[in-house]
């Protein structure tokens, strides 16, 4: 591997494949390196792929990509131990083209997506770990891989190596993450008959449903659970800040079993069979944890640059857009023959002024806030459940009396003030 490329992209996930696809389409000579046996073999995602950002790269991909189901309903469950307050939205506009989002299985989808980049002319090499960036005169000029004579050179190296971006770290772009900057997610894919899925989730053929789980799904720790419908399987998972698991000494797979056996969830998955168990970290530090993402001859994209909007369970879409912007910047740099940090900074500026940067800034305090004040998850969600139960239980008590009781159950005047203040604060960090 001694030839020189215009660009080397490290990591064939949504960010890296998007970048390689756009570069190749623009006529650049691009090498896409993947450490796994095939693209997707190291990748984990609950499973929601957003149509818009994907279509920016492959128009009408939904006509040929291996997708599971277009999502027509999104539900949110605020769970207590034996109850849940549920709300959601279902709309038939999501059941037809151009669709809103889809459930996908990463290993299948990423292989297909990478094949599209290869069709455009990208060179994909699997089973190759990049050990370090080759730096000369303060400029990244290539990478050293774990293959014999494994040094490859390029004008630009794009780091799309995921949440554990040891490469960005070794360049000094960001410090090691702290346990409250990453969420550990575990999930299972459960095989279940197509017809049963459609009956249980009130779906017709080629329609999907996503359910996000809050509160008792994570035993009150900051995090969420999820239950998504695939074609003939369900994806169920739970993710909490690593710091929360450490603090409460909880085993992640036991938490997953707890969710699977929760009385609000169990009926959905009854009779299913586990096909695969997966664990992965999600970068959730947000805007404040983002390090440097551009240097001389190098750009960082996707999870490697902490691009996750935890509040809206978005990540792969941010990754794809970052990959596309990086590619466009590199094509400009190629024209100008200038691969300096100054030139490549166009990527960062575009990213930060578009929806990716705007959303990262909008929610910059959210993880920190909800982590610092656990009462949202361990007090207020149970309170909401209790209030709903009281209000809807017909037992001879008048509705006025019920309201009075619910009001008094909120606590003393001081406690009510605290509740009001917390609601205001929550509004402030997400508004």
């Amino acid at each position, binding site marked *: 591997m001694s030839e020189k490329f215009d660009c080397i992209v490290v990591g064939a996930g949504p960010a890296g494949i998007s970048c390689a696809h756009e570069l190749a389409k623009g006529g650049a000579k691009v090498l896409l390196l993947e450490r796994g*046996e095939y693209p997707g073999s*190291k990748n984990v995602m609950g499973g929601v792929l957003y149509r818009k950002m994907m279509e920016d790269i492959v128009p009408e991909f939904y006509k040929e990509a291996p997708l599971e189901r277009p999502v027509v309903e999104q539900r949110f469950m605020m769970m207590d131990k034996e109850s849940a307050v549920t709300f959601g939205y279902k709309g038939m506009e999501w059941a037809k083209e151009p669709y809103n989002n889809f459930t996908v299985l990463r290993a299948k989808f990423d292989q297909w997506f990478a094949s599209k980049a290869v069709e455009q002319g990208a060179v994909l090499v699997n089973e190759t770990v990049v050990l370090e960036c080759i730096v000369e005169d303060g400029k990244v000029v290539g990478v050293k891989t774990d*293959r014999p004579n494994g040094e490859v050179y390029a004008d630009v190296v794009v780091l799309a190596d995921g949440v554990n971006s040891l490469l960005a770290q070794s360049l000094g772009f960001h410090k090691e993450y702290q346990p409250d900057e990453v969420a550990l997610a575990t999930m*299972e894919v459960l095989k279940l008959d197509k017809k049963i899925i459609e009956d249980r989730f009130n779906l017709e053929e080629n329609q999907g449903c996503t359910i996000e789980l809050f509160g008792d799904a994570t035993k009150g720790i900051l995090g969420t659970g999820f239950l998504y419908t695939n074609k003939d399987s369900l994806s169920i998972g739970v993710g909490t800040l690593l710091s929360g698991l*450490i603090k409460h000494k909880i085993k992640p797979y036991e938490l997953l079993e707890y969710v699977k056996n929760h009385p609000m969830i169990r009926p959905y998955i009854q009779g299913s069979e586990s096909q695969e168990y997966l664990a992965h970290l999600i970068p959730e530090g947000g805007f404040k944890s983002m390090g440097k993402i551009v240097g001389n001859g190098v750009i960082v994209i996707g999870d490697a640059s902490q691009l996750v909007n935890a509040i809206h369970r978005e990540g792969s879409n941010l990754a794809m857009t970052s990959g596309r912007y990086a590619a466009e910047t590199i094509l400009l740099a190629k024209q100008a023959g200038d691969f300096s940090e100054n030139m490549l900074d166009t990527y960062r500026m575009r990213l930060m002024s578009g929806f990716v940067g705007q959303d990262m800034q909008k929610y910059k305090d959210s993880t920190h806030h909800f982590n610092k004040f656990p009462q949202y998850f361990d007090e207020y969600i149970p309170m909401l459940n209790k209030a709903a139960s009281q209000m809807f239980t017909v037992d001879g008590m008048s509705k006025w009396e019920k309201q009075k009781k619910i009001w008094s159950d909120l606590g003393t005047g001081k406690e009510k003030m605290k509740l009001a203040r917390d609601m205001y604060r929550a509004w402030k960090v997400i508004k």
Partner: protein
Amino acid sequence: MSEQKKGQSIEEKQYLVRFNADTKSHLHVKDPDICMTSCPDKICTIFCPAEIYKWEDIRMHVGYEGCHECGSCRIGCPHQNIKWEYPKGGHGIVFRLG
């Protein structure tokens, strides 16, 4: 009663996953004495999602073959005592679905 029988314990969950283990470990405890003397909680044995860290009386056993390569141990070790690398190209965990 739930019909959800298979895949309950961590051993059963791990059995569902395909691994192509390298012959040598990509995970190393930097200083075994730290686990022994300064780390009463041995919290890695709790939060590792594959339960690959097991305390055996006087030493930490690292069953790297079942590692999901998530990175939690590197970040979560209170003593930064774990040297974490990626397994050799093409080795380690191989997800087939999710």
